[in-house]
């Protein structure tokens, strides 16, 4: 068996497999996120006998115990044992799309325990500070990243925010890209603010009270399991985050001067 470890959001996952093609796909797709040293999670990977199956969306369900989950999509089926931090992944197609889909599900669950969330948001770093820009497709996430050539890209699509022991939070670079087709830098940068994006005629930031910020944040959290205890944990982490980090509604027009509004908030 060979193995390869990736580190995302400060959490290391070792992929263990006899299949060199799987390792090639992972090494190529997550080149900026490969790590050495002891892994937090261990996933055994093989090929799914029946190949692709007819399944439209990701399905995550408990398997006997509430903390042992099965995740399935048309191109993979996986088990995740949350307390043991082990799992299995059977790929219906050995390509980066299937592996990426699995990792989004797996990390949404694995990072939760560490007080971290995957958020449908772009994120950028500047001078040791970072900002998260959340919003649905079309709200301007990729536009904003393109307006920021001097900023460090952490993600244009799926950002990772993690509560820190110091009472603050960090934004981690993410390999999960969107329209930009470019991975973020694998860095952890102190999080300055979360902005909820919308296109507007002029730049304007409006501070959101924690309850409003929580209501704005939750629909943007990427989470696939429906188990009440896990969803309640998402609520806890999200509520903690909006209590720690200032949140704003950001109306902007597509001009680089938006950074004056962002940094001036």
């Amino acid at each position, binding site marked *: 068996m060979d193995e390869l470890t990736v580190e995302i959001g400060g959490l290391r996952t070792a992929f263990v497999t006899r299949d060199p093609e799987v390792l090639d796909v992972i090494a190529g797709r997550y080149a900026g996120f490969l790590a050495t040293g002891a892994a937090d999670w261990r996933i055994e990977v093989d090929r799914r006998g029946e190949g692709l199956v007819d399944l439209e969306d990701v399905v995550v369900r408990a398997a006997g115990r509430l903390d042992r989950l099965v995740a399935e999509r048309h191109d993979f089926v996986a088990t995740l044992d949350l307390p043991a931090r082990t799992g299995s992944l059977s790929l219906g197609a050995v390509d980066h799309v299937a592996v990426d889909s699995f990792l989004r599900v797996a990390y949404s669950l694995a990072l939760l325990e560490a007080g971290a969330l995957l958020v449908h948001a772009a994120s950028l770093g500047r001078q040791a500070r970072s900002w998260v820009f959340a919003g649905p497709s079309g709200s301007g996430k990729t536009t904003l990243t393109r307006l920021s050539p001097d900023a460090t890209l952490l993600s244009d699509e799926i950002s990772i925010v993690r509560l820190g022991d110091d009472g603050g939070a960090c934004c981690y670079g993410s390999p999960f890209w969107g329209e930009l087709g470019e991975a973020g830098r694998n860095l952890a940068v102190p999080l300055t603010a979360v902005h909820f994006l919308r296109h507007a005629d002029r730049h304007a930031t409006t501070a959101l009270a924690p309850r409003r910020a929580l209501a704005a944040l939750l629909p943007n959290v990427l989470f696939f399991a429906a188990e*009440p205890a896990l969803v309640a944990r998402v*609520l806890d982490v999200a509520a903690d985050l909006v209590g720690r980090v200032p949140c704003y509604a950001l109306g902007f027009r597509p001009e680089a001067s938006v950074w004056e509004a962002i940094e001036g908030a």
Partner: protein
Amino acid sequence: MPEAYPVQNPRAAWRVYEGEAVIVSPEDSTLHTLNPVGTLIWQAADGRTALDAIVGRVCETFDVDRATAARDAAAFVELMERRGLLTVHEMPHEPA
């Protein structure tokens, strides 16, 4: 009128922040936020407490007359039932 015992859907995830409940619907992950009166009713909906007793708690906690509180509570419970977040039983009911 038969007595009504509302009980929370055990698959709904919820928390109370700043005195107001935030509930995630188990069917479609829709987010519901309740005002303080709704939050009190939601928290009391344990299947063992009659709606009439819950209305009494509402009147003790908020400045509202009993008839208004009873009417509003019945409407709230009906709405939450339609959303799949509460079920109503005619007898005391232990949640699953």
